[in-house]
């Protein structure tokens, strides 16, 4: 709000321009009203207090009462003492400056300033009544009741507290929501038994009666509080970690997480000493659950890097191919990099895919490196499918003579591009889509991910041979015997499979796009059909 230096009417009035009054400016309305202070030129002689002015200006000139120091003028109703009637309230001079007012006017004004609904007083303390001119406080002799003061103060406080307490409640709701989803995720990934073991302290705490229940038994109350604090101190990682699961899942779908995620394992390792249920065991196989989860962020980064280097460029190429030719500068093969329009369309699609590939693909690699041939089978086809297909497709196409060269050319370009154009593409991919549907899709995908991963783990259990998935003494290949490990690998497989599928679809769409043609109308057939009908 713009504010200007205070400028009071009294200042203006004191520096009146010396110009003869024009009676023509008076409108009939004002001359009619009896109680007005209008003084016309011809009325002037009636006034007694005009000696000095008269001498300066021979022309008969009205003298406003405010010019005369002996006449008091109320700064609120603008009436002066010449108009006083027996009913007018007494004059008050509450402050050192020259402003005076009727008592009633002052009291009205003060009542308005102090009114609780008055939005002008925003401060917590009771509004200060001060003279608008000299800013000195106007004192009121009035009864005080501390109960009234207290309640009024409390009312003002409550008014202030609405927004903060609303924010507090809302964030509390978000906290509990994400904690609930975190618990759900834990169960989805670890299964009923392990999940219950992990969450045991939390579960005990959730149905603990609030402290105020023990008010009549202070010892019990203090014991409960102490217990609560102790519990939080011991299991702080659980209490911090559970509500953080959902935000981190969401963040992992964006480039934000690139910065955060690698930090978390460090925190994890640093605090490992307190972990009651697991120990660090780098050399042992299978790794402990905590270790496996701690390295997930690194695997994620690795996988993303791999995808960027190897597949992003090809995917971009394929996407560009199915754009309408308007946005393409030239024919099939040679259109990379030009045309901003292409890039825009691209962005959305790439981001769209970015939602999915960010997460666990990384883990797939780990899986592929480390163990089970089953995963190698699953993982390898993704990339290979696309590399192998073009030849097959070329043969099957309607116009092989055109397509084969184009395809070959394209492959070459794809191979060259990663070297040149990697940087910009990385940046393009990093940008987060801000379309509402895109955001919703990302969020939902992230939130549903633990459940999907758990389900995939269960599916693995069904598919894989029983000997791998059922505990059998201290077998060294026992990774998949744990529910959590199956969940991790299932999640990785989902991500990798999704990426592979999307890549295949993109590539296939590009292929089919090239082979399109418009079918001529078969007149003979059409005619015969028509006659038949």
């Amino acid at each position, binding site marked *: 709000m*713009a504010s200007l230096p205070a400028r009071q009417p009294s200042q203006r009035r004191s520096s009146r321009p010396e110009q003869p009054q024009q009676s023509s400016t008076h409108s009939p309305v004002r001359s009619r009203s009896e109680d007005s202070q209008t003084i016309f030129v011809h009325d002037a002689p009636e006034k007694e207090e005009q000696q000095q002015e008269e001498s300066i200006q021979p022309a008969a000139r009205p003298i406003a009462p405010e010019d005369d120091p002996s006449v008091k003028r109320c700064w609120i109703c*603008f009436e002066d003492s010449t108009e006083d009637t027996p009913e007018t309230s007494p004059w008050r001079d509450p402050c050192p400056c020259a402003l005076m007012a009727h008592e009633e*006017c002052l009291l009205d004004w003060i009542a*308005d300033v102090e009114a609780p609904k008055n939005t002008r007083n925003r401060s917590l303390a009771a509004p200060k009544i001060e003279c608008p001119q000299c800013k000195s406080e106007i004192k009121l002799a009035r009864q005080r009741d501390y109960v009234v003061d207290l309640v009024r103060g409390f009312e003002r406080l409550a008014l202030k507290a609405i927004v903060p307490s609303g924010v507090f409640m809302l964030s509390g709701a978000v906290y509990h929501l994400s904690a609930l989803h975190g618990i759900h995720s834990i169960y989805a990934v670890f299964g009923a038994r392990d999940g219950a073991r992990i969450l045991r302290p939390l579960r005990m705490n959730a149905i603990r009666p609030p402290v105020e229940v023990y008010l009549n038994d202070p010892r019990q109350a203090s014991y409960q509080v102490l217990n609560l604090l102790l519990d939080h101190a011991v299991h702080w990682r659980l209490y911090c970690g559970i509500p953080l699961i959902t935000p981190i899942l969401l963040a992992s779908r964006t480039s934000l997480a690139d910065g955060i995620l690698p930090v978390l394992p460090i925190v994890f390792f640093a605090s490992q000493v307190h972990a009651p249920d697991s120990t660090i065991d780098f050399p042992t196989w299978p790794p402990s659950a905590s270790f496996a989860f701690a390295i997930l962020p690194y695997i994620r980064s690795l996988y993303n890097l791999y995808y960027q280097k190897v597949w992003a460029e090809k995917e971009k190429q394929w996407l560009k191919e199915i754009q309408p030719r308007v946005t393409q500068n030239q024919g099939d093969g040679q259109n990379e990099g030009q045309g901003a329009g292409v890039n825009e369309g691209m962005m959305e699609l790439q981001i769209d895919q970015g939602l999915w590939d960010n997460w666990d693909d990384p883990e797939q690699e780990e899986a592929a490196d480390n163990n089970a041939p089953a995963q190698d089978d699953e993982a390898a086809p993704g990339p290979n499918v696309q590399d192998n297909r073009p030849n097959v497709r070329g043969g099957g196409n309607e116009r092989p003579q055109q397509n084969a060269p184009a395809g070959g050319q394209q492959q070459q370009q794809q191979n060259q591009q990663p070297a040149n154009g990697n940087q910009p593409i990385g940046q393009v991919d990093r940008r987060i889509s801000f379309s509402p549907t895109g955001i919703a899709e990302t969020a939902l995908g992230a939130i549903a991910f633990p459940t999907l991963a758990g389900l995939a783990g269960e599916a693995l259990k069904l598919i894989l041979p029983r000997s791998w998935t059922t505990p059998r003494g201290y077998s060294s290949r026992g990774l998949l015997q744990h529910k959590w490990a199956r969940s991790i690998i299932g999640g990785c497989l989902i991500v990798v499979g999704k990426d592979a599928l999307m890549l295949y679809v993109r590539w296939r769409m590009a292929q089919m796009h090239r082979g399109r043609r418009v079918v001529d109308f078969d007149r003979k057939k059409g005619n015969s059909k028509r006659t038949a009908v």
Partner: protein
Amino acid sequence: MASKRLIKELDAYNKDPSPALKALEPKSEDDLFHWVAVLRGPEGTAYEGGRFTLTITLPSTYPNTPPEIRFQTPICHPNVNFKTGEICLDLLKTSWTPAYGVVSTLEAVQQLLSAGGEPDSPLNIDLARLLREGDLVGAEGLVRFYTRMLAMPR
């Protein structure tokens, strides 16, 4: 109290017109609570030569509550809404006291025009943005253009 004081203010203005105003009168003879004013664009600014019509609505609790003043002539100013004419001035809201009157408030509005306004609490975002980014020439040009187009008699 309100109507008495309004009559006094009107008389005081008619006796001693403010240089900031070209006209100030009630809309109709029997309604003292709706006034119309014509404000002169301050000289030496981009508003110079403009004649801005303002509507003044006086609450029945006047002078304890401030008058409601709006520009009727569209004006290009960072603290005035171009469409509704709403003015963002503390005097019209929080820092009002009965010691002000209609005329002195209108003079404050004129001062707001000559002071250039406060682009950090804008009602005209486009102009405020120009000012904030330091494009004073552009802002002045825009103001001059709108003043000439909308607020000058032809």
